[in-house]
């Protein structure tokens, strides 16, 4: 299979789906780049280059640059979705959800329910998340627990190029509003990605590595860190299962609970979102309720501290989970005795 970057995988997904379905339109700030300017058109292809080339293939009618007004264009995407298009809107950084959250959670997410099942809202909101690029407090957050909290939204966090493509195609074909979170640091990650279209289903966790001494649940960029930790631990004779839920809403509870049992009830959850009411807490609570009898040690959460994201590189590194912190947590749960 050809090796491609996470960025390219996403770009291919958009190309495929726009080619396949004329209702798919792409909307966002600088998703071409150069609108109204004297120089190169499609100069950016999005702030991270994910939408590059769509302009040439599909034209300005379907590849829509916007003013810097997220409420207006995300709301417009929701309205367009309700009336027959299948928009893919891009919020450049998930940190900007604060200026357009109403259109996401009170409008798009609730149309169907409030209207008694009459609406469909096939809307995808692509956005980027994550620390690690020294972008400081307002450009480094994870924030997907906020979307996961909202009934009516689906929340997708691909951890590798293959999933990125398959999950994005799935998202575009899905009839519900989907928040699709791309980790900025992963854009250059490469992996095997088929040329053709394929889907990765929602709510189906991926067993990234098999073990039986401990279960590490990780999301997005943390999956790679968990794999590194697991490799390190294997050298110490601790065999871990690494489980990537891939979507947080729906969440594949079944596989998670099964794996808790298969891994002797010893669980570490690694997540990049803030700890309070965060993703690690959510999954831990589900396990603690539904797999209580199998748990043999406290579930340890490896998350950032309850602080904003700092700028200075050392601080930012200390802020994020990393393979060492994960390995330490696993050693702790494995050695726990009651």
């Amino acid at each position, binding site marked *: 299979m050809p090796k491609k970057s996470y960025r390219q995988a996403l770009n291919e997904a958009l190309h495929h789906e726009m080619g396949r379905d004329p209702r798919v339109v792409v909307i966002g700030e600088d998703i071409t780049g150069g609108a109204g300017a004297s120089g190169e058109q499609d100069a950016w292809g999005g702030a991270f280059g994910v939408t590059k080339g769509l302009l040439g293939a599909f034209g300005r009618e379907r590849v829509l640059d916007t003013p810097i007004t997220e409420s*207006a264009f995300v709301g417009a995407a929701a309205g367009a979705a309700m009336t027959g298009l299948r928009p893919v809107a891009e919020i450049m950084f998930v940190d900007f959800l604060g200026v357009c959250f109403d259109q996401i959670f009170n409008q798009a997410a609730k149309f169907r329910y409030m209207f008694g099942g009459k609406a469909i809202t096939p809307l995808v909101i692509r956005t980027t998340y994550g620390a690690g690029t020294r972008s400081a407090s307002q450009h480094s957050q994870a924030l997907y627990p906020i979307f996961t909290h909202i009934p009516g939204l689906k929340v997708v966090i691909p951890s590798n190029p293959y999933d990125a493509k398959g999950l994005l195609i799935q998202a575009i074909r899905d009839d519900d509003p989907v928040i699709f979170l791309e980790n900025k640091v992963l854009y250059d990650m490469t992996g095997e990605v088929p040329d053709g279209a394929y889907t990765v289903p929602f709510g189906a966790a991926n067993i990234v590595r098999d073990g039986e001494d401990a279960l590490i649940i990780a999301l997005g960029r943390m999956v790679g860190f968990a794999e590194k930790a697991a490799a390190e631990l294997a050298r110490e004779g601790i065999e871990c299962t690494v489980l990537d839920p891939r979507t947080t809403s729906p969440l594949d509870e079944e596989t998670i609970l099964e794996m808790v049992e298969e891994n002797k009830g010893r669980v570490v959850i690694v997540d990049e979102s803030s700890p309070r009411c965060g993703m690690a807490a959510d999954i831990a609570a589900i396990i603690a309720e539904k797999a209580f009898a199998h748990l043999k040690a406290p579930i340890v959460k490896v998350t950032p501290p309850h602080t904003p994201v700092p700028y200075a590189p050392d601080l930012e590194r200390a802020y994020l989970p990393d393979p060492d912190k994960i390995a330490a947590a696993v050693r702790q749960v494995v050695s726990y005795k009651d």
Partner: protein
Amino acid sequence: MQGLQLPRERLLEAYRLMRTIRVFEDRVSAEMDTGDIPGNTHLYAGQEASAVGVCLHLTDTDRIASTHRGHGHCIAKGCDVDGMMAEIFGKATGICRGKGGSMHIADLGRGMLGANGIVGGSPPIACGAALTAKVNRTRDVAVAFTGDGGVNQGTTAESLNLARVWMLPVIFAVEDNGFGEATASSFATAGDICRRAEGYGMPARKVDGVDFFAVHDAMGEAVERAREGGGPTLLHIVTPRYYGHFSGDADTYRSAEEKAAMRRDQDCLARFRTRVTQASLLTPDDLDAVDRSVSAAIDGAVLAARAADRPALETLLTDVYVRYA
């Protein structure tokens, strides 16, 4: 006034819709007092000429996005009155199966994209409907209803800009009833609404919202511009608001005189009657017949709503997703 040249059937239809709204709202107000309506409502009485003057230009594939004060827009856009009443009573036969209530009435088949509990929530959605029309080259238009309060919300301003940048077939119908809740627009809405729109590069017109024909004419021009690819328009429609902000609002922030004068001098139904009878377009009998049939229809809607079943408890869990997984 081109509206005066409307065919007789259209004039009767306009009157029927306006009357339906008025009777519907007066009746909802009365039913609220019985305590049998579970939720709250914001009544549209007084503003009928706006909804009907705007919506009479629209087909089912034209879309409107509405506000918390949405009953009038719904009726003008052709929503089923029985379904609306049942919805307000929270019944299974409601237009949203009892899940939405007064503030979330929608009928996508009629191009009614929903009342909206969020002030300023609708303009972006209307832009989206207009985008669909533009991408699909259907010549459909979209209307964003908002109030003198909602026009200040950032979403409205953003939508004006986006509509102009994308040259969307959208009309911003700003219904200025003088108040956002208990606060006068003279206090809260600085400057001039039409000049704001012009600042965003679009034509705007201030319209007497008590006069169906004035609204109808202004909207006619705006719709034609939109269908021809000429982009958005803003209409600043000045109307009275007969009731308090919500049913139950004691409305003490307006003087008794002001309220009496409003009901006396700013009644779009009376104005319409005078205009069409003086011009001999319709007779008082024509209009009286409409009044009678409308009253009967609303009586029927209330009876049916009261008699209808409550939603089955299982429906609590349905309609969150089309498919969850």
